[in-house]
Every structure is written in C-alpha cells, then in structure tokens.
C-alpha cells in the first residue's frame, strides 16, 4: 500500500479514521462552539460549557486569521511521531481575531524567522496518516506576507 507513496502509517499515537471524520469540521476549518447561555467561545468544540456548565452550545466558525502569542521549536531531540519529515517544526499559540486561542503548527517558517505578534492565517495541510492509511487533513497556520 505505502509503496505507492511511501508515507509510513504510525503505530502509536494514531488518528482513528472514524474519530477523525467526526471532528473534521474543527480540523478542516476551525469550527468550535459558542455557549448559547454565556456566549463563551470554545475551540475545539465542547458539548458542555466549561464556564457555565450549560449544554446549549452551537457550532461557531472561528476566525481564520490571528496573531502569534508565543511559539516554540520542536526541540525534543526525537521528532514527533508521524511528523518526522518536517525539520524545524514549530508549534505556536495563536490568538485568533475573535479572541479564541488555538495551539497549532506553523507551516513553512522556521522559528528563526518568526516573532511574537506576527500575523498568521489558517491553511489546510496534510497531517500524519490515519490508522487505516487514509490521508488526514487539518489546519496549520502560515505567516502572512508583508
């Protein structure tokens, strides 16, 4: 199977195809939750509001643009499983324009050329493969030009 396009399927810390599919709206385009009772915004989506414990939450489309609050290069010594093809992997905390915070990977910009406060926009990228071998797509952020 993978001799077609040899991208290994990890054996641990795997994405399940079924769970992946259920959470795809969040992963593909940052759909979180808004609490109908206290208006708090959440990402990833919640079924119970962590602030007021209401169960009345509705899907909320988070902003696709934001600002880097802080970032850290992947310096664990061994690459994260399923992500070893990307050298200089950078993970960041991004504050979206609607105030929601997401932890995300920064695509295509090494830590040396990133600064707190940089403007970023969401992009779709391929994540590590699912347990079945299926491709898994999800958000990353990219530094905005200019």
């Amino acid at each position, binding site marked *: 199977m*993978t001799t077609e396009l040899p991208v290994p399927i*990890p054996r641990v810390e795997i994405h399940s195809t079924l769970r992946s599919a259920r959470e795809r709206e969040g992963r593909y385009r940052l759909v979180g939750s808004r609490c109908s009772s206290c208006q708090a915004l959440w990402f990833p989506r919640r079924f119970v509001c962590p602030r007021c414990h209401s169960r009345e939450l509705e899907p909320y489309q988070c902003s696709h643009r934001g600002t880097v609050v802080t970032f850290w290069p992947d310096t664990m010594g061994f690459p994260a499983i399923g992500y070893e*093809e990307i050298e200089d992997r950078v993970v960041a905390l991004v504050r979206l324009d609607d105030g929601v915070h997401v932890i995300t990977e920064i695509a295509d910009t090494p830590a040396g050329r990133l600064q707190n406060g940089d403007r970023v926009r969401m992009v*779709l*990228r391929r994540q590590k493969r699912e347990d079945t071998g299926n*491709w898994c797509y999800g958000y990353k952020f990219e530094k905005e030009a200019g």
Partner: protein
Amino acid sequence: MAGIVAYGVALPKRRLRSSDIHATWRNVAEDVLEKFAFVERCVPGPDEDPITLGVDSARRCLEQAGREPGEVDGLVFGSCTNPYSTKAAATVVGEALGLPNGIFSTDVQFGGRSGSDALTVALALVGSGMARRVLAVASDCLSRHVPPGHVYEYSASAGAVSFLVSAEETVAEVEGISYWASDRADWFRVAGERYLQLGGGFVGHMSSWGLVENLLPAWKELVRRTGLDPASLQYAAVPQSTGVMPLIVATRLELDMDVVLPWVLTASVGDVGSAGVPLSLCHVLDNAGPGEKVVVLVYGWGGGATAMLLHTTQRLPSLPGRPSVMPEVERGEYVDYSRALKYEHKLLRPDRGLSGYY
C-alpha cells in the same frame, strides 16, 4: 455569458534548482537545461498535496471575489494527480472551504487538461442555469509522480489555481470554446502505478505527439466559430510543460511570440500540471486591461485539447488582490535535492513503524 469572477493562486513555498538535480544525475548535457528553460521548480512540502494547494487557492479566490462559502453552489476539482483513487477529493475540498453540502461537487481528470476541464464544467453549470456560482479548482503535484533520474524531473512541479465562475460580476467572459480529442498514450499511469510513463518521446518530433495533433484542430475550430482574427489577440496562455512547448505551439498555430512568451512561467515554477495554463491565464488577468482578448490553449495527455477565447471586462481593473501570480512565484525558498526527494516521498521507508525512522 458565463465567465470568470475571481481567481486565486497557491504555489508551494519550496523551490529546487535544476542545477541541484543535475549535480546528482548528470543525465542531460548542461545546455539542454537552458534550451528547455529548466531553471527551477516548486517542491510540495511533505504536508502539501493537490487537495491542500487547491483549498488554499480557492480560499484566496473567494477572498478576491468578496464572497462567502455559503454563496457558492458548485465545486469542480480538476487534478491528474488526485491523492485519492475512487474516493472523491472534492468532498474534502468542499468541507474545508465550508461550502454547503447540498451542492453539485465532483472531481474531473484529463491529464494536463484536468484543471481547465474543471473550468469548462463550471462554465457549463452556470451557462445551463444549473448553478449560480461555481468554484473550479485546478491542482496538481506532478513532481511526486515523476521518477528520480527522469529528465522530466527538472520540470515536474506542483501548484493550484481556482476560478469562481458566474454569469454576474465577471472580469473575463467566454466568447467561444472548442475541443479536440483523439487517443494518444503520450504520458500515462496505468491504474495502481505511481510514476508517469512516457509513451512518445521527450525530445524530437515525438515530443509533441498528441499536442499539435489535438491543439491545431481545436484552435482552427475556435477561429472558425468566433470569427477571430488572430492578429487582434493581445494575450495567449499556452501549454508550457517545457520552455520549448510554447515555441512549438506559437509556431504551429502561427501566433505572435509577443502574445505568447511573456506569460510563460516554466523557468520560474516548472510544469504545474493541469494548473499550468490556468496559472498563465491568471498572470495574463493580473496584467490585462478591460476589453482585451485572451486565448487559452490547453493540452491534456491522453490526449485532447481545449481552445477558449475570453475577453476581459470593465470590472477587471478594480478587482482586488492583483497581481496574484508574481508574489506567489517570488516568495520561493530553495531546498536541496536530497530534501526534495524526502518531501516528494521518493525515498523508500518502512510501511509501519514507531516513527518514520525507527
């Protein structure tokens, strides 16, 4: 008549110099690189493929149009290097963009014509009244499907272009369109194979096997149908897999070189597959003024050609986000050949492991 409302471009950031490939393989004489305009090309990152690039270009297209995803009622995804056989890729693209679920969406494939065929289908959907606003996505990662050491490796690249098609608010309208198809196994992958196989030849008279046989009749039919005077053309977007191909096309179709060559991007980005001619068209639309004529000539392996005549409208100069092509072309960062091989999954690795390394 239906036409293009907005367009978006996405190219991978990573670039590979032809000289880097040549240093490893030395499989052609050095002056061949120059003759074919093999200078540099895009390398898709390990996390990029036709779906991700297609989504990125489509987002930019919607932004340029100032339209919300909910206002789109059709999606056609054209690629000859679709990450999926059997399963639709359009479902991933549609959901990633947040398009409504109750719309027509599909994948189309016809070699290098796949992307412009998506545009043709979108025009048909709008023209027939079946849809109001359709996204046509042209996206390919050819480089992953050319084996290491093949001369096409210097050119095969990756990228995506999207068009929003509607009958309202157009910046370029279609005046006429014609086709020609005849069976040629010039480049192909039989089902299950990864690497492209060359049926004709890369150089010599067989290199245009299929190209001229299909493009010439399509072009003649377009001229006949529209009454076009080729001398009145301002712009032409033509097949540009190699730097030689636009010269063959311009010579055989008797087009003015000044109309063709400024819009050839082979030396900067390589062969972007079925997004290649659409990219050239975007480059034209970035620079054209209102009321100008543009011919779009496309060839797809297998083989078939499309010839399309467009004229730009008064709305074009006020379209935001122009230019869209050169900023993408110029933002490249170089990687070396060994990293390109890794990113394009050309190094053999274990199928399953704790990680890719151990």
